[in-house]
């Protein structure tokens, strides 16, 4: 495999991996929002106060964990892969000169 081909494969890997991680973050945020919407609708729909309090607490805890996981993905994974991606792109542009 030529150097250029290897670089292109590596660059492709970074794109695919970032896409999957971004999709996961999107999915977590989507479910977190739907969860919050449900809590609001239950509150407006006269849900049992004891059960509403429990579900509000569950949603708060879920939001905290969701936020922790999405930040971890952004800061630890996406940022790391992005650095590699930029470095590859810079090397590839030198090849094309």
């Amino acid at each position, binding site marked *: 495999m030529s150097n250029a081909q290897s670089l292109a494969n590596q660059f492709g890997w970074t794109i695919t*991996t970032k896409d999957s991680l971004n999709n996961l973050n999107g999915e977590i945020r989507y479910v977190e929002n*739907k*969860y919050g919407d449900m809590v609001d*609708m*239950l509150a407006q729909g*006269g849900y*049992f106060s004891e059960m*509403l309090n429990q*579900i509000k607490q569950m949603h708060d805890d879920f939001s905290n964990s969701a936020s922790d996981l999405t930040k971890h993905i952004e800061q*630890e994974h996406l940022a790391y892969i992005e650095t590699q991606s930029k470095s590859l792109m810079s090397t590839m542009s030198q090849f094309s000169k």
Partner: protein
Amino acid sequence: MSNENRLFKIYTGDYTKNGYDSGISDSKKHIPKNKFKVLKILHPINYIWKFGNSFDSFTKNYDKGYLDGQRVNHQVYSSTQPKGTNMTTDNFSNHLRMLNEVNTNLTSLKRYMNDMRENYKKQIDVAENGLFLEDFTNPLKEKHQRFSGKVDGMISQIDRDLGKIKNQQEHIQRMMQIARNP
């Protein structure tokens, strides 16, 4: 009740169901609260064995059943709402639908996170097998381990939430039954 269930109840001292059903029944008949019927309901063995648990499980759930019965009788659905708000089975159905929707979303997310974790691991394996140098893949493997731990934590949390949502759904279904057969 089967002998096995009766023996299990005596052994555990769990009179939750008796307490709840008695509370509902008294409330529906509009008779004043009478928690001392616990003394008639407890098996004599439970006066000695697990008395505290037997007494508490009956009386606490008697109160809960009594309150639920009153809510149905007076069509007051929530203590946070103004008096006079009507409770209908439509309300219950809407609440069940909302809980079902979140249940479905959480279950899908759990599956998605698990699949994603596996696929990400495969991606890293591909990277490790000749695509990238070790100085890139080794830190990524460590990051994946931490990621996997966080995913495990979140999956456990979702499982706990699903269990609590199921309990709430069962409670609403019981209330629907009471509302239909007052």
